[in-house]
């Protein structure tokens, strides 16, 4: 299991190094995800232990946002000035983005799937 944890860290490290040398505007971890994905595609299957390690990391994904979220205490004063504007912008924009993206994606994929099942 430790070998796959090391592999995940190595993918991130390689991703960070790639981003630093090429200067492309992609975060290192996202590049690391692409690398690990490429590795899985070449191998053609998911090693059982890698599945276990990634499952452990992802099953507690929301915990990992708690430290950064607690940083709100530093910005309470600044946010108090723009509080209403920020709250309205966050709520309306987030809710509307979810609705727009979900509806669009569903309209585009469900139609295609229906077309496929018609053809079969």
């Amino acid at each position: 299991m430790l070998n796959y944890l090391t592999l995940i860290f190595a993918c991130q490290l390689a991703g960070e190094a790639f981003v630093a040398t090429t200067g492309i505007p992609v975060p290192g971890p996202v590049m690391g995800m692409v690398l690990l994905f490429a590795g899985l595609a070449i191998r053609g299957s998911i090693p059982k232990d890698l599945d276990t390690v990634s499952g452990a990391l992802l099953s507690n994904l929301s915990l990992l946002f708690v430290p950064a979220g607690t940083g709100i205490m530093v910005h309470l004063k600044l946010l108090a000035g723009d509080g209403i504007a920020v709250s309205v912008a966050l709520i309306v924009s987030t809710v509307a983005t979810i609705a727009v993206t979900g509806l669009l994606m569903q309209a585009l994929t469900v139609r295609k799937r229906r077309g496929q099942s018609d053809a079969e």
Partner: protein
Amino acid sequence: MQSDIPTDLQTVWVYLSASPLLHLTMTLAAYQAGMWIYKRGGMNPLLNPVLIAVVALVTILSVTGTSYDTFFEGAQFVHFLLGPATVALAVPLYRQFHRVRESAFAIAVSLITGSAFAAASAMGIAWALGAGQTTIISIGPKSVTAPVAMGIAESLGGLPSLTAVLVIATGILGAALGPLVLNLVGVKDWASRGFAMGTAAHGIGTARALQVNEIAGAFSGLAMGLNALATAILLPLAWSIFR
């Protein structure tokens, strides 16, 4: 001798609060308390465990007069795992890849629309309601995963640490309200539900999606990664044209 007791307690407190262990343990405990409440409430999205943990921690830190920097010395060990967790998203993504390939066109169109809509609506509303320029810039990448959003905000002249907070708030809002909104507008397809959550609410939306359905989780993780990419390229470009 009675007066020794508070002094001793104070000594213990001073000792403990100087070690990263205290705030690391507090972070884990606060999150598990949040998780416990979330599960007791039937996984109601409004009882978001991150929100509960953050409120609890901010309250405790304020009451004890602890600075965020001191807290972060312990909490950074949890924060650090965000990177490896992002890499690990390759696994559910690979498992669902046949579905992703089937809907490549839908993904491309939904991603660009969602990404542009997320940034434009947030900045537009903040501007219309009279927010300052620093706030407007900092809110632009609010739907992007925290490390990338901070980088974008910095390159445009925003406040990276403010962006981090706005990003987390967006994630909590998306995870809490997203499922209700998707039910309301009639999005039943798991892939579409996940994709919408990941585009608008990055990793916190993805965490919620993973808890509910594996297909939704995979598409949410994919949307999170793609939106980080799309916003990192499109937002600086759009900002240089429109500002």
